[in-house]
């Protein structure tokens, strides 16, 4: 008898808040799908651009990891300055995003293979998981104020940050699937 496909949120142990834990379970589900969908991609596919000035799959994978570390520092860790080098081994701008019109992917990602991006994603998740595990339900109500790079003030809450981490990864994961589809068609035509 075939085993049914089971889709439930798997709550990891050791969290101070069930709601915060649920966000990590959602992020883990996203990563599992993202990892499964990217297995076939070689470095050429990872750095393929549909047109100059457009993101590559590699840039999006690096961006997902960088942004996860960034929001973990803003929210759960409550830091006032942000950097990703010590966590990921690449800097906060090394994803090359936002890419300027008409330009190529960043040199920092040239020739990188899937194992490199898998490692970035794993490091980012280990970092966010450790920080989010320490949150309590009360922490989710906490308001957070920061100044954006453009100088504009931004007010948010811990709960919004956790929601945003999920929807951010989901949005770029959708784009990765679309780019992979385009790459397949382009490879067939070339």
């Amino acid at each position, binding site marked *: 008898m*075939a085993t*049914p*496909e*089971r*889709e*439930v*949120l798997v709550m990891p142990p050791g969290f101070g808040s069930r*709601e915060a834990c*649920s966000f990590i379970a*959602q992020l883990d*589900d*996203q990563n599992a799908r993202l990892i499964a969908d990217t297995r076939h991609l070689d470095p050429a596919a990872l750095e393929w651009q*549909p*047109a100059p*000035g*457009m993101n590559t799959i590699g840039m999006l994978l690096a961006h997902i990891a960088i942004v996860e570390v960034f929001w973990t520092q803003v929210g759960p860790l409550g830091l006032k300055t942000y950097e990703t080098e010590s966590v990921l081994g690449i800097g906060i701008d090394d994803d090359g995003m936002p890419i300027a019109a008409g330009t190529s992917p960043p040199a920092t990602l040239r020739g990188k293979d899937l194992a490199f991006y898998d490692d970035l994603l794993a490091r980012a998740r280990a970092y966010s998981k450790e920080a989010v595990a320490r949150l309590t339900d009360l922490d989710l109500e906490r*308001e957070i104020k920061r100044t*954006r790079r453009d*100088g*504009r*003030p*931004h*007010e*948010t*809450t811990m*709960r*919004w940050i956790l*929601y*945003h981490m*999920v*929807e951010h990864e*989901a*949005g*770029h*994961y*959708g*784009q990765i*699937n*679309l*780019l992979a*589809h*385009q790459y397949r*068609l*382009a490879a067939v*035509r070339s």
Partner: protein
Amino acid sequence: MVTTAQTLLETPPGFRSETIARFLWQLDEQRRVLIKDTRGLSAKELEWQPAPGMNSIGMLLAHIAYAENHLVQVGLEGKPTSDTRAAIGISEEEEGLPLAEGAPPSPALAGRELAWFDALLERARAYTRGVATTLVEGDLAREVRRKRPDGSERVFNVGWVLYHMLEHEAGHHGQINLLRHLQQLGRGTGAR
């Protein structure tokens, strides 16, 4: 004067479960940004494909509405099958996903204006809200077992369905933004 950007996750009133209310807020926030990102799209832009066999923005908008309503009917209401045409006015065949290799966009969507897709999305969300307000916290763990057309079985719970509705819309929203960028550059992968 400098304006402060506020992004707060609020718990809307009228729900029996705070968790479910917050999922609805997340879905509504996702929808707010999707609506904002699609303003100004013409019927021609909505049916543009980067290459034959690839989804158009219109197809993705219709798919978001269709999938949301299908998931609510089978996942939250526990119906054995959904009838999305009766509920919101579109079927799976009409939204056209998955599109066959080399195929044009779904003919059922030809010439549709943005207002038509807006109304479709709104009907789907109104239906979702109507069902979600009746659910209680204990429903989140309720498991649903479904037989797929190919005979395989799928098991999921209500909590996963709510999360999936969010990540599903977010994923296709990301694709819509990417398609807009491709349109602006006038770039497809093949015929256009």
